[in-house]
């Protein structure tokens, strides 16, 4: 049972990545690979600040700001230097690896007996239940913030940017600026996932971000399948489904390990699972022809 509770908690930790990838991929139509780097950056900054006993009100803003800077860099390279978004993201991600290594000074930083976000309440005897409460509150706050943002005039302009660039420019929006801000928000969200996971697992690692973008993609794709299936147009519901997607994704991984699949095969299983979800709607479409 605890095994699946852990999957649920991890899913909640990954909600930042799910929302981040939703913003970059679904709203802006930009495949953003910066994710791998900004997630690790979030984790690394968290570990370093906690070890140096920085208070919580400094750690989280620092993580958010640095994540945003990483995203904005990708945005600037993509829009101002007119470099393909995928390549821009890869470049920033690659460079961040050095930044992360230099920040940590070594490839792995454990948080032994250091008070983290998850130690602030102690209602239940099972620490996982305490963690669950904190994560739920955290995720609700981020979702409310992003949901509100997307409902504002600025948010509508954001959503229109990925949809019809010619239209939104003729309506007075600087699309370059919009994309830079969008990628900044997306990577700030991703960095908060690094912040949560590092405190949840108790260490930051230089390799923690490798392939993490697939977690976001998987979550968004699962959510998209449900959105298309139920023809959902509400922004709020879409956001909730992204979070659900992140949790379902972790459950699939947990089940895979639970039924005794070799852990070395996990990434292959993940890739096949994502491929299945992407191709299912197309396969069923073919049958109906």
């Amino acid at each position: 049972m605890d095994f699946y509770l852990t999957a649920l908690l991890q899913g909640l930790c990954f909600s930042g990545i799910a929302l981040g990838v939703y913003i970059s991929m679904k709203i802006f139509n930009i495949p953003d690979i910066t994710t791998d780097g900004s997630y690790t950056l979030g984790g690394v900054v968290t570990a370093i600040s906690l070890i140096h006993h920085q208070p919580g009100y400094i750690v989280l803003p620092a993580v958010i700001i640095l994540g945003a800077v990483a995203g904005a860099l990708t945005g600037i390279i993509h829009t101002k230097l007119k470099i393909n978004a995928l390549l821009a993201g890869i470049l920033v991600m690659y460079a961040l690896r050095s930044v992360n290594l230099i920040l940590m000074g070594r490839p792995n930083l454990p948080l032994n007996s250091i008070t983290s976000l998850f130690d602030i309440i102690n209602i239940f005897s099972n620490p996982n239940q305490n963690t669950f409460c904190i994560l739920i509150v955290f995720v609700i706050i981020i979702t409310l913030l992003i949901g509100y943002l997307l409902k504002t005039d600025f948010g509508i302009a954001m959503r229109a940017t990925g949809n019809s660039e010619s239209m939104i420019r003729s309506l007075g929006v600087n699309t370059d600026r919009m994309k830079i801000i969008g990628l900044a928000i997306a990577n700030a969200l991703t960095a908060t996932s690094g912040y949560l996971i590092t405190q949840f697992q108790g260490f930051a690692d230089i390799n923690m971000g490798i392939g993490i973008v697939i977690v976001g993609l998987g979550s968004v794709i699962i959510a998209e399948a449900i959105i298309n299936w139920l023809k959902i147009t509400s922004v709020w519901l879409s956001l909730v489904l992204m979070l659900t997607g992140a949790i379902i994704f972790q459950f699939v991984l947990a089940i895979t390990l639970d039924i005794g699949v070799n852990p070395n095969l996990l990434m292959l299983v993940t890739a096949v699972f994502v491929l299945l979800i992407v191709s299912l709607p197309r396969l069923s479409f073919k049958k109906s022809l």
Partner: protein
Amino acid sequence: MIDIKQVYKTFNKGKPNQVDAVNGIDIHIGTGEFVVIIGSNGSGKTTLLNLVAGSVTPTAGTVSIDDNDVTDLADYRRSQWIARVFQNPLSGTASDLSILDNFRLAAIRTKPKGLSIGVNDHFKKEVKEKIATLGMGLEKKIEQPMGTLSGGQRQALTLLMSIMDSCQVLLLDEPTAALDPRSADVVMKTADKLIKDFKLTAILITHNLKDAYNYGNRIIQMGEGIILKDIDTAKKASLKQNDLFDWFG
């Protein structure tokens, strides 16, 4: 309202595929004028329109709108004067956004897009009333995504969106080219009505010579990036529809 002085535009300058799209054009378009531009493909019509809109910056010459030199002003900054309707109905509206959200953006075209929620009951009522004037029954569908509508409906809504905020110049780039004859007729009549009601300065590009004859109070024929004919209101009155066909003969 619009002054174009000695404007040239060359694409791919110095390369084998160099195109001299606009070759020294001078036009003054007065406030409230409705100019129709005709000309064969590659005559420079769309480039000229894009020079006014700011999607293209001239190689030489100046463009001014309302006595402001806008030659180097980006397109999104010219939105304070200009509203556009594109040839492709998909370009003028955002498919995934609801009709309501599309109208919200249009309503704040000249204003900053801030962090407050502008779509409220009052705004919904205003949009419904505006859309009802089209007589297409779309006022009941304002929560639907724009993508669920037909091309004709989307073009008609794009036109309506242009007058949601203060608008002085309306640029119509072959707005009916992708539409069936009946929708095209509705869109052109709506455009004509809005231009007259709101006293807009308008430029229409069209390949439909019937529309060129029926609408607008000035016709410009372009060819090879220059103005071949410029027929003002007085001369247009004495023009026959067949004369237009003869120009292309």
